[in-house]
C-alpha cells in the first residue's frame, strides 16, 4: 500500500510523490503542446478574419459589454481556483472543495453566456459555414469553449469523487493540475479577448 | 592534387550536362532563367562534392586503418573530444555555405522581378484539371495547350488556377511556380532560340496529373505578332478548304462549341481550339493524327484518365472524318 491515508501532508502535497511530480511536469508539457494548438488556431483566424464575403464582419457583430462581462467572470474563476490551491496548501480541504465549486459555477456561467453569444451571432447571419471568417471564428472560440466544458466536467468529477476522502497524496496532484488547466484556459481567453474582440472592433 | 579536386566535380557536371531530352531537361538550359538556375545547381553541386570527397576520404581512411584485426583485443584510448577540431568543422561548413547562400539570395530576388516593359509580353496562365489556358491580355487572345512566345523577349507570366493547385514547369526554360486557386503568382522567362519546349504540371492535381503536359512554342517576334493578330481576328470567318470541313464545322457547332471556343465564339470549359490545326500534339501529349483525335473525342477518359471532357461515342465515322477535317483547317499562321 503505497498511498495510505496520510494525516500530516508535506507542504507541497501535489509534488510529494514521484507520481505527483510526473503528473505535474507532464501536465506542464501538455500545456506547452496546447499552446501550439491554440497558436495554430489564432494564426488561421488572423489569416481569415478579413474574409467575410457576403456575411457580417467582426465590427458588425461583436458586442463588447457582454464579452467584457464574460472575461471578468472567467478571470474571477481563475482567482477562486487560486484560493482553492491556497486552501489546499493550508490543509483546509473543505475550503478547497468550496472554492473549486465556485470555480465550476463561474465557468458554467461563462459557458452559458458564450452559447448565448453564438446563438445571437447566428441570428445576425453569421453561421459556421457563412464565410471563412465565420468558420475560423467559431473554430477558435469554440475550441476554447470546448476546453472550458471539459474543465467543468473534470473538476466536477474530482469534487464528487473526493467529496469525503480528505486531502491525500493521490488527489492533491489531481486538483493541482486541474487548476493549472483552468489557468491556461483563462490565459487563452485573454488572448481571444484581445485578438478577436478588441482587434475586431478596433481594427 | 589540387587540380584533381577541381576536376572531379567538373567531370561530374560535364556528365550531367546534356542529360535527357533537349527541350525537356533542366540540365540543358535553353533560356537565361533556366541557365541561372543551372549555374546555381552547378555551384551547389561543386561545393557539395568537395564536402563529399573530404568526408569519404576520412571515412575510408578510418575504417581501413582502424579496423579490428584478428587477435587484436586491445582497448583503445577513451578520448573525450577535441575543441579545436570542433571549431574547425563548425567554421569551415559555415564559410562554404556562405559561398552558396549569397549568390542564391541574389538570384532569388532577380527571378522575382516581374515588371512589364515596352517589349515584354504578359501571359496569364490558368491551370485546369487537366489542361492549360494561356491568355494574352495585351493582344486580347486566349489560347489552349500551346503557349506561343516570341524569342528574345521577356515573357511575364501570371499564374492562376481554376480548381486545385497545379504547378507550371518548363524545365528547359525556367523552374516552376505554383498555380494556386485564389492567388496570383508571377514569374518570367525568355527563350533565345526558336523551338518547342516541353512543359508540364508538377503538383499532384488528380487522376490526369501525369498527362497534364503542354508545349511552349518560341517563334521569332514577327511570326508571333502575326500569330497574335490572327488569333484575335479569326472571329468566325475561317475559310474552310473543303466542303467536308464545312460539314465538320456543323458537327463542331452541334457538339463541341459549348465548351470549346474557336475564334471569339464558344465556351471556355475546355481548351480554345482556334489554332488546333497547328498543334504538334493532341491533348498535350498524343501524337497529332486522325486516329488519336477521333479516339480522344469518343473516349477522352481512356486516353487521359480523369479528363473532364464529355465522351462522344455517338459521333459516326463520317461525322468524325468531317470534324477532323474541320479541326485540321483551324490554322492561324499560314
Amino acid at each position, binding site marked *: *500500500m*503505497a498511498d495510505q491515508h496520510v494525516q500530516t501532508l508535506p507542504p507541497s502535497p501535489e509534488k510529494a510523490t514521484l507520481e505527483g511530480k*510526473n503528473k505535474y511536469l*507532464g501536465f506542464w*508539457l501538455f500545456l506547452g503542446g496546447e499552446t501550439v*494548438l491554440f497558436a*495554430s488556431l489564432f*494564426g*488561421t483566424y488572423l489569416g*481569415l478574419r478579413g474574409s467575410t464575403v457576403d456575411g457580417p464582419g467582426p465590427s458588425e457583430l461583436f458586442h463588447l459589454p457582454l464579452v467584457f462581462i464574460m472575461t471578468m467572470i472567467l478571470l474571477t474563476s481563475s482567482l477562486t481556483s487560486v484560493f482553492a490551491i491556497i486552501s489546499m496548501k493550508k490543509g483546509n480541504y473543505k475550503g478547497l472543495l468550496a472554492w473549486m465549486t465556485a470555480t465550476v459555477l463561474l465557468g458554467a456561467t461563462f459557458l452559458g453566456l458564450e452559447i448565448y453569444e453564438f446563438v445571437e451571432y447566428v441570428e445576425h447571419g453569421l453561421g459556421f*459555414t457563412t464565410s*471563412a471568417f*465565420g*468558420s*475560423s471564428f467559431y*473554430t477558435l472560440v469554440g475550441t476554447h469553449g470546448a476546453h472550458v466544458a471539459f474543465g467543468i466536467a*473534470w473538476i466536477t*468529477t474530482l469534487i464528487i469523487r473526493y467529496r469525503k476522502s480528505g486531502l491525500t497524496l*493521490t488527489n492533491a496532484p489531481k486538483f493541482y493540475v486541474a487548476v493549472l488547466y483552468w489557468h491556461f484556459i483563462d490565459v487563452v481567453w485573454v488572448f481571444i479577448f484581445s485578438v478577436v474582440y478588441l482587434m475586431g472592433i478596433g481594427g | 592534387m589540387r587540380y584533381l579536386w577541381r576536376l572531379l566535380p567538373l567531370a561530374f557536371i560535364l556528365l550531367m550536362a546534356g*542529360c*535527357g531530352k533537349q527541350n*525537356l531537361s533542366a*540540365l540543358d538550359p535553353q533560356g537565361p532563367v533556366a541557365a541561372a538556375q543551372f549555374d*546555381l545547381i552547378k555551384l551547389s553541386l561543386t*561545393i*557539395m562534392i568537395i564536402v563529399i570527397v573530404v*568526408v*569519404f576520404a576520412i571515412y575510408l581512411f*578510418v*575504417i581501413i586503418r*582502424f579496423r579490428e584485426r584478428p587477435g587484436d583485443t586491445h*582497448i583503445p584510448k577513451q*578520448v*573525450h*573530444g*577535441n575543441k579545436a577540431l*570542433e571549431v574547425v568543422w*563548425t567554421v569551415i561548413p*559555415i564559410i562554404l*555555405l556562405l559561398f*552558396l547562400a549569397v549568390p542564391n539570395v541574389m538570384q*532569388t530576388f532577380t527571378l*522575382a522581378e516581374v515588371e512589364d516593359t515596352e517589349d515584354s509580353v504578359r501571359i496569364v496562365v490558368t491551370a485546369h484539371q487537366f489542361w492549360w489556358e494561356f491568355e494574352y491580355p495585351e493582344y486580347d487572345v486566349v489560347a489552349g495547350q500551346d503557349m506561343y512566345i516570341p524569342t528574345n523577349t521577356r515573357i511575364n507570366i501570371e499564374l492562376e488556377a481554376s480548381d*486545385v493547385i497545379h504547378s507550371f514547369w518548363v*524545365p528547359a526554360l525556367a523552374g*516552376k*511556380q505554383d498555380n*494556386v*486557386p485564389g492567388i496570383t503568382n508571377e514569374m518570367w522567362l525568355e527563350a533565345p532560340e526558336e523551338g518547342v519546349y*516541353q512543359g*508540364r504540371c*508538377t*503538383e*499532384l492535381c*488528380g*487522376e490526369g*496529373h*501525369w498527362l497534364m*503536359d503542354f508545349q511552349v512554342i518560341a517563334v521569332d517576334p514577327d511570326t508571333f505578332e502575326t500569330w497574335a493578330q490572327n488569333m484575335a481576328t479569326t472571329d468566325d470567318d475561317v475559310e474552310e478548304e473543303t466542303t467536308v470541313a464545312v460539314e465538320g464545322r456543323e458537327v463542331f457547332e452541334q457538339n463541341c462549341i459549348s465548351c470549346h471556343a474557336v475564334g471569339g465564339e464558344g465556351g471556355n470549359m475546355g481548351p480554345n481550339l482556334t489554332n488546333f490545326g497547328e498543334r504538334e500534339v493532341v491533348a498535350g*501529349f498524343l501524337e497529332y493524327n486522325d486516329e488519336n483525335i477521333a479516339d480522344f473525342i469518343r473516349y477522352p477518359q481512356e486516353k487521359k484518365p480523369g479528363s473532364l471532357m464529355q465522351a462522344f461515342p455517338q459521333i459516326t465515322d463520317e461525322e468524325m472524318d468531317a470534324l477532323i477535317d474541320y479541326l485540321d483547317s483551324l490554322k492561324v499562321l499560314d
Partner: protein
Amino acid sequence: MSNTNAQTKSVVWDWLTTVDHKKIGIMYLVAGAFFFALGGFEAILMRIQLMFPEATFLPAQTFNELLTMHGTTMIFLAAMPILFGLMNYIVPLQIGARDVAFPFLNSLGFWLFLFGGILLNLSWFFGGAPDAGWTAYVPLSSEYSGTGIDYYVLGLQISGAGTLIGGINFLVTIINMRAPGMSMMRMPLFTWSTFVASTLILFAFPALTIGLLLLMLERIFGATYFAVASGGNVVIWQHLFWIFGHPEVYILILPAFGIFSEIIATFSKKRLFGYSAMVFATLLIGFLGFMVWAHHMFTVGMGPIANSIFAVATMAIAVPTGIKIFNWLFTMWGGRIQFTTANLFALGFIPSFVMGGVTGIMLATSAANYQFHDTYFVVAHFHYVIIGGVVLGIFGGAFYWWPRMFGYRLNETLGKIFFWMFLFGFHLTFFVQHFLGLMGMPRRVASYLPGQGLDEMNLISTIGAFLMGVAFIIFVVNIFVSMKNKETSGDPWDGRTLEWTIPSPTPEYNFAQTPLVRDVDALWYEKYEGEGSMKAAEPLGDIHMPNGSILPVIISLGLFIASFGFIYHDDGWTWVAIVGLVITFGSMFVRSIKEDHGYHIPVDEIKKGGK
C-alpha cells in the same frame, strides 16, 4: 491492492492489458514492422507500374492512392512506431528506470496509434484510399477527393494523439526518472535524441492536430477555411502541415542519429568523440527544425524575402549535422572497429546520409529549388535521408538491441547478406532518381511517356526496389531461423550503457536495484575503471509495479468507432459517433475515478529472478 499476477491470465489478455514498457515496445515494433512491410509492398507495386513507360499495370487513380498510402504509412505507421518501440524498450533501461513515467498513458498511446493505423488502412475496402498525397494539399483533398481523405484525417488524428501522449511520456520519464548520478550530461545519446525528438513531437504535432481538425470540419461540416469561393485560403493548410511536417523529419532522424551514436561507440570500443558537441548539435538541429518549414513551399509564391530567409535558415542546419558526422568519424578514429551487422548499418549510413544531406542543401538553394521542387530529385533526396538515415538506423538498432529485447541474437551471416543487398538495392533505386527529376520527371506521376530519355533509369530504379524487397524477406527469415541462438549473457557486445547491465531475458522490473551512475558510459566505466559491475543506489527491497488495464484498448476503440460516425454522418450515422465518444469518455471517466495503486513484487521473488 490485490497482487495481480500476469501468469494466471491468458497470454492475449496479458498483452492487451499490459502497461510494461518492454511489452508495449515490442508491440510497437511488431505493428510497425507490419506496416513497414505493407508500405514496402505499396512501393513495389508503384515501381512495377513505373518500370516501363505508359504501363497499364495500375490505373492512375490506384497509383495516386498507393503513393498517398505509401508515404503516410511509412512515416506515421512504420518509421515512427518502430522508433517508438525502440525508445520504449531501451530508454528506461538506459536511464536506470523501472518503467516510464505514465505506464497507463504509454499503453493508451500504443493503442491509439494501432487503431488509427487500422482505420486509415480500412479505407482500401470502403470506397478507396486517400489519393491526395501524404501532404493532402487542399483543395484537392477538401473539394476534389472521396471518403479516403476522411479516413486519412481521422486515422492520423487518432494515431497522432497517441504519438503526442508518447512524446510527453518520454519527456517526463527522461526528466524525472533517471537513476542517481545520471545527470542530463551523462545520458546516452539515444536517450538524448529521444528527449529532443519528443520535444519536437510536443510542439509539432498540435499543428497537425489543428490542420486535420480544420480539414475534417471543412469536409464533414462544411466549414470554409480553404474554400476560395467563401474567402478561404488554401496556403494555410500548407503552413500548418509543414509546421508539423518539417519537425517530423527530425523526429524521425534524430533517434536514428542516437542509435548510430550508440552503435559506433560500442563497436569502435571507444567513448563517443565530442559528447557535449553531439548533444549541442542535437539540440540545435531540433531548434532549427522549427524555423525552416516553408522551404517546402518555395514555389507557392511567398516572395523573395521569405524564400531567402528560409533558404539560409535551412542551409544552417547543415552545420550541426556536419558536426555530428565528423564526431562519428573521429569516434572511430583510433578505435578498434568491429564489423558486426549492426555496425555495418552504421557504416553504411554515413556515406548514404551525407549524400542525402548534400542534396538537402542543394534543395535549400531557393532559386534552384524552382527546378528541383516536386520532381524525382526531391523523391531521391528524402529517400536518401529517410532510408539512408532512419531505416538503416532502425535495422542497425534492431541487430544491436535484438538480444536485449528478444533474448537471442540475429544470425550475422544472414544479417550481412541482408545489409549488402539492401544497401545496394537502395542506391540502385534512388541514385538515378536525382537525374530523372532534373531531366523532367515530376514526382507523383502515374506513368511517363516514352522517348523522353527516362526509360532506362526508371527500369534501373525498379530493379533496385526489387532487391530491397528481397533483402527485407531475408531479414524476416533471419528473425525465425535465429530464434534458437539463445542469448544468456546480458552484455553480448561488451556494451557501454546501462541497458547491458541487467540479465537476459530482461526481468519485468528491469533493475533489481537502481544502479548508481558514475560516468557517461556507466557500464564501461565500472568494467574498465571501477570494480567490474554496477554499484547499487538502493538496498534490495519490494518493487512497486503498476497494474495492467484494458481501458486503453477501450478508449481507442471508442474513437475508432466514432470515426465511422463522422465519416458517414451524412448517411445518418451520427449516432455511431455518439456511441463511440460515450465509450471513450466513459472509460476515461472510469479511469479518473478509480484509484489504482498497483502491486508489489516481494523481495524473495526478485532474489529468485535476478542475480
